[in-house]
């Protein structure tokens, strides 16, 4: 579904990650993991074409993506990126109004059920500024889902959510994947989500400027002999004791 070949990403010619190679299979849940600030969001933005790769290639699907027509994938930004002047319902309805010929009342009902899926039913007339951070995130997910795209990119979908909402979200993601075969690329560092959702993952590292581990996160936690990898999965600090207390 997605092929990344020798990709270097970064800003202004300064690379954050170099020589990335990985593939996302169709109907897979694919996790991009790594510490804060290592370049996960940058990688996602490069994959969806918002940032130009410093080198290398991103291929989505078999053919090059069409320049016009409906968006080929749904995207959730880390900040939610809702349109501030529109109500939640309008935010979710916008792609449907622009890219389908559905009747307004059908769209209205679809939006209501979509908001229900993310637990935001009842808030359709709220403006984004009137919502909490986690609610904005969930509204962003509803908007990303609106066009029933076969491919989703979600940047930290469960960050800022309480454990129950996060679990609901994981269930939604798994259901979408199992029942519709949606390919889902998730940027995250929520351990509970990682192990609940599973799938395959890559673990990025800032110092290494690349992928330091890949595969099934559960297996990595148990079997990896790399200190950085087990540290990430078992929530261990990477600072050595003597670094933490300078003497």
């Amino acid at each position: 579904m997605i092929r990344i070949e020798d990709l270097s990403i970064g800003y202004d010619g300064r690379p954050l990650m170099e020589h990335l190679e990985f593939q996302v299979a169709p109907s897979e849940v694919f996790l991009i993991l790594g510490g804060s600030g290592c370049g996960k969001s940058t990688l996602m933005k490069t994959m969806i074409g918002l940032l130009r790769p410093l080198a290398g290639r991103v291929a989505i699907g078999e053919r090059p993506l069409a320049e016009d027509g409906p968006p080929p994938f749904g995207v959730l930004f880390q900040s939610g990126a809702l349109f501030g002047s529109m109500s939640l319902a309008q935010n979710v309805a916008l792609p449907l109004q622009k890219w389908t010929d559905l009747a307004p009342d059908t769209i209205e009902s679809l939006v209501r059920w979509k908001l229900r899926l993310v637990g935001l039913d009842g808030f359709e007339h709220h403006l984004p500024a009137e919502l909490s951070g986690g609610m904005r995130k969930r509204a962003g997910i509803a908007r990303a889902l609106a066009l029933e795209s076969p491919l989703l990119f979600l940047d930290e979908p469960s960050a800022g959510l309480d454990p129950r909402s996060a679990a609901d979200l994981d269930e939604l993601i798994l259901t979408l994947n199992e029942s519709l075969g949606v390919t889902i690329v998730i940027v995250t560092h929520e351990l509970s989500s990682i192990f609940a959702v599973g799938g395959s993952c890559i673990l990025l590292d800032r110092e290494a400027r690349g992928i330091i581990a890949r595969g099934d996160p559960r297996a990595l936690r148990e079997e990896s002999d790399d200190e950085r990898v087990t540290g990430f999965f078992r929530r261990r600090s990477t600072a050595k004791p003597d670094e933490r207390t300078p003497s």
Partner: protein
Amino acid sequence: MPEESYRVEALDLADGGVELRLAGDLVLERADALRRSLTQAAAAGTLTRLDLSGVRSLDGAAAAILAEACLAAEASGPRPALVGAPKKAALLLELTAQRPPRPPVHGALPDASLLRTIGQTTSKLGEIGRSVLTYLGCLAHSTRAVFSQPRSVHWVDVPRLAERAGADGAPIVLLIALLIGVITAYQAATQMHQLGADAYVPDLVALSITRELGPLITAIVVAGRSGAAIAAELGTMRVSEEIDALETLRLDPLRFLVLPRVIALTLMLPLLTLLAEAVAIGGGLVITTAELELTPGVYLRSTRDALDTWDVAGGGIKAVVFGALIALISCERGLATRGGAEGVGRSTTAAVVASLFSLIAADAVFTLLYSRLGI
């Protein structure tokens, strides 16, 4: 063919109910058709069964529509049975139907009709007046801090702000001033020549530029440039919670953001005005010497004789007040921003409009005052 890949068939059951057989691809593009067939079937009788055994694919939109139909049927009878759904689709249907959407917490925002807008604006006037007074009060309080706690003012910003408002704005201000000088001189020259009063053209240009046009035109350009920039910057800071962050750091936004801007603009506007006046008089000189039989030397001499200190100083005082007005109003509008990107746009517009209005109003007051004082 997309048209053929969706079929629906209604069967009347023996018990008086209706069974709907759906087949093909139930996807977003056919949400309308699906919804229509479901409503029709429900109108024809009680929807008791939905047979999905012919369904090839079913997406989230179709699941929502089916769940909605079941919910509607349930209101008047038993919940319709969903049978034969492919195993994968059943998962999604179940998740969708688990709990129906709740009604809105609050209603949709009413449309802005003219009468409502007038009413709301009127009722808000008092509020606006109060908030302006509060702002001025707090500002007066903060201004005291300039002397009692000079460190609490963010002085390091002042040079940067002064450069942006002054030096960066100079080219456009001077260009406009030059043109204003040219236009004034040209108009004066044509009229005065008819009266045979060529010698008064330099006086007319010099006085109208220094007393009125110079300060006003400069202030108008600065309001459009720097006032808008200030309002947009502070507005964006407000909506992205940066102002809140300042407050939690116990940094007073008035001292940290507003005072540096007020200081920068009150310093820069008189300087810009002086430059603009010089350039405008230069423009007048070029036109007058070209159009009338006056030498540049004569022109400059009569300009010098026409102007006294108070003509220039009076314009300078105006410029100081104009600078303060622009900065104060733009900061106030910026800090009062509500909502997201749209709110920033609104407060930027409001800042420029209010600044322009206050400039003209202040100019009128000055004219009155100066004529009383005989300046």
